[in-house]
């Protein structure tokens, strides 16, 4: 691939996808190997989870440990998020939001009021903790019927909304569905479609996996995983939460246009440009008609491929510097 990303114009004011977050890897701040696991994972983002220790002031405990945990999680160049429960969001945000995180993953959301309350708390925390105003993102982990039904209002509740993460196992349980792949079809197919379109409608993106791996969450072989990621990507997901470290490499390689696809886009762009010079509005390539929207899509997807590569380069530099 020889076309440089600098030569490819952005289509519209916003990039597609908004973020290069192909792999999100959850790790506990209590894990003594947190730093090593985050560093060696090559995940695009780390989600920090925590347990409130009984018999202690859990807020003070977390406040004393979060800055170091964030630093450790970020060493390999990953973005860092903290996972927060909606029911106790204000207290958990106070205890965990520190410089170095990109945002929070809010779990258990049922309506826009949850987002508004969290956004308001983040406004104050950004100011008091020296974080750029409005910079912290709110990602929504969708695991309730209310979160699905009210998804559009949730997405529109704050400009901080970035990503919808579909937690399919918990969502199935919340909907009374069998949280196992017992059906010939994906029972969450329409919900996934809804999450993807709602997230994109506010300039964000959705993360999730294809059925049945979305429910089994298994540590399957690379070939099966590659196939599942391909289906998830072609459904519209831009990445996935990885329950196993072994998923990360496949997700990083799969949730982006492949080298072959990128080469094809370069060809499309070049051949179409030639056609335009000859005064043509459309040109054929391999039996397919290339016209303005196809050319435009090729440019957008090629840009996506370059941005994914740039993200990999960025993480490589972080590794080299560590």
């Amino acid at each position: 691939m020889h076309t440089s990303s600098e030569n490819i114009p952005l289509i519209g004011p916003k990039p597609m996808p908004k973020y290069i977050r192909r792999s999100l890897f959850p790790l506990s701040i209590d894990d003594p190997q947190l730093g090593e696991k985050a560093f060696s994972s090559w995940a695009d983002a780390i989600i920090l989870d925590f347990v409130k220790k009984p018999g202690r002031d859990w807020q003070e405990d977390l406040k004393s440990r979060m800055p170091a945990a964030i630093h450790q999680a970020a060493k390999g160049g990953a973005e860092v998020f903290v996972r927060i429960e909606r029911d106790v969001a204000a207290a958990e945000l106070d205890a965990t939001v520190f410089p170095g995180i990109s945002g929070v993953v809010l779990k258990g959301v049922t309506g826009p009021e949850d987002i508004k309350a969290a956004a308001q708390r983040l406004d104050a925390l950004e100011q008091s903790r020296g974080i750029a105003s409005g910079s912290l993102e709110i990602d929504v982990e969708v695991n309730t019927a209310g979160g699905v039904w009210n998804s559009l209002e949730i997405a529109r509740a704050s400009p901080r909304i970035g990503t919808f993460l579909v937690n399919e196992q918990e969502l199935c349980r919340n909907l009374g569905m069998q949280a196992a792949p017992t059906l010939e079809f994906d029972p969450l197919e329409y919900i996934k479609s809804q999450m993807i379109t709602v997230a994109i409608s506010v300039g964000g993106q959705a993360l999730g996996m294809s059925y049945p791996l979305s429910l089994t969450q298994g540590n399957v072989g690379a070939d099966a995983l590659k196939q599942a990621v391909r289906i998830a990507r072609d459904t519209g997901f831009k990445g996935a939460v990885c329950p196993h470290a072994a998923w990360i490499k496949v997700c990083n390689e799969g949730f982006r246009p492949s080298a072959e696809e990128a080469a094809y886009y370069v060809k499309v762009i070049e051949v179409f440009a030639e056609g335009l010079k000859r005064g043509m509005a459309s040109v054929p390539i391999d039996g397919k008609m290339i016209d303005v929207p196809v050319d435009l899509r090729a440019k957008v997807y090629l840009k996506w491929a370059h941005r994914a590569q740039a993200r990999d380069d960025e993480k490589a530099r972080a590794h080299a510097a560590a």
Partner: protein
Amino acid sequence: MAEITNPRRSWMIVPAHDPALVMRHEGIKPDVVVLDLEYSVPPKSKEAARSGLADLVKKIGESQVDVFVRVDRDTRWADVRAAMYRGIKGVIFPGPEEPAEVAELGELIAAMERERGVDPGVTELVLMLESAKGYWNAAAIAQASPRVTALGVGRIDLTMRLGPVPQDEFRLYRFLMTRALVAARMLGKQPLGALWRPDSRGGVATKEASAKAAREARLMGFTGCVCATPDQVASVNDGFSLA
């Protein structure tokens, strides 16, 4: 998820104008007997069906089965007046589209409870979604009355209104089921519906096809459905029973 205890699995439709057919339920044992004032009653027999409800409810009440009355959307006011006797658990309202319709019917039921000496507030309301508008407003209409205990997926009216070829697979159906399920679970209502296919609906349903439709619906999160014929009841009960 709000826990739904003791879900009613099989809702057997029986034509309210025909007492002999109604009493067949005794040997079939559905979880719910639905005295129908809608499609299974010929227009000329509607009035007879209404006027016979009080006796039927009393008679069925002796068999300890839950009794509901399915009203006709177009004549629901007269139907509710005819149905409200001590002994019925609730009213099935097919095809609601607006919250105001549900609230109004809830108020009529309240008035009839007072008039007929039925304990106030005990009469349930089951909503069967049968139109695009109804699906879009599902959450709002389910919240329009505290009496609403179940939200169901209709079918025949849907095929008519949304336009797919009835004898073919109803390809919109899984989307509509998902929407009804999400609304029902969000609000703690019982989700009613089955994954009916051309060979598993109404009079053409085989036992196997009915069981499959119910089993797949259970895996999708539903807990009961309407049975158009007595032959479906046992299969539906099996399909909705947890393995």
